[in-house]
């Protein structure tokens, strides 16, 4: 009798976990083969920055899912720049965090504008420097 109850309990546990996993799998869009690695992506670059410059950079966000998403936040991390004069501190560049609610249709892209500022105090050695940027995008499924 005890074995039977243990068996029933274990079966229930497995069943509920399976339901949970299935629910998650159904909610997360994309094919199962790609789901683990597919995420919204962002890319964007800007050139011709100078000390004191305030510019708008176009960042293209791609929705890889078969359902619409709402982009809520884009942040960019700046790495140390390198150029013909050597290195230039990442701190001379400020990229404002974009916040909003922009819908991107399934498997489509959208361009968003992010404000980039180069400090007026940027030293002469920052001329021609290229700063690598890494974007982070936060989005939720459109209801």
């Amino acid at each position, binding site marked *: 009798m005890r074995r039977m109850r243990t068996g029933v309990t274990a079966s229930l546990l497995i069943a509920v976990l399976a339901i949970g996993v299935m629910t998650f799998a159904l909610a997360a869009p994309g094919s199962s083969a790609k789901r683990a690695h597919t995420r919204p992506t962002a890319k964007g670059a800007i050139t011709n920055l100078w000390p004191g410059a305030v510019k708008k950079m176009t960042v293209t*966000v791609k929705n890889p899912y078969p359902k619409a998403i709402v982009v809520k936040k884009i942040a960019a991390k700046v790495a140390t720049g390198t150029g013909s004069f050597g290195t230039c501190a990442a701190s001379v560049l400020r990229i404002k965090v974009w916040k909003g609610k922009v819908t991107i249709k399934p498997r489509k892209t959208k361009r968003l504008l992010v404000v980039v500022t180069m400090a007026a105090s940027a030293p002469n050695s920052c001329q021609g420097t290229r*700063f690598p940027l890494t974007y982070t*995008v936060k989005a939720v499924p459109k209801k």
Partner: protein
Amino acid sequence: MTFKKFSKRAIVTSLFLGVVLASTVALASWLATGTGKGYAKATSALPLTTSAATLGSSSLYPGGSADVYITVNNPNPYPVTVTDVAGNGAIVTTDNNATCDGATGVTFTSQSGLTFAVAANSSASTTFAGAAHMSNASDDACQGETFSIPVSITGHSG
């Protein structure tokens, strides 16, 4: 008694499973975070160019001074402030009068500590009062000549 024990276990198990199910469903309301790469590139400064000239050949005479009129061209997409203008080579006549060029006696007084602003992609002019001098060593052939004064310019953005 056995039935009562089973009920307790069932309740505990159900609660546990309920929590598991709830947390799993919570995950189902996913937050899609993504990443990407890009870059930002600073421009390289383009050199300032200039044309410099005295206000008129009649202004200079041996032992005298004249104003120097200068135009600075800024090809950069940002404003610059010129801080120094210094002589940069021999001062010669614009029509290459060899006799005069051999002994113009003309000198230029370098200017420093300036705050001469030139807007982005534009030109601006200024006058340096009494910056050109002609000494008594000037050849007689320099009468009526116009002189070209080569200069170097130093400035910064902003």
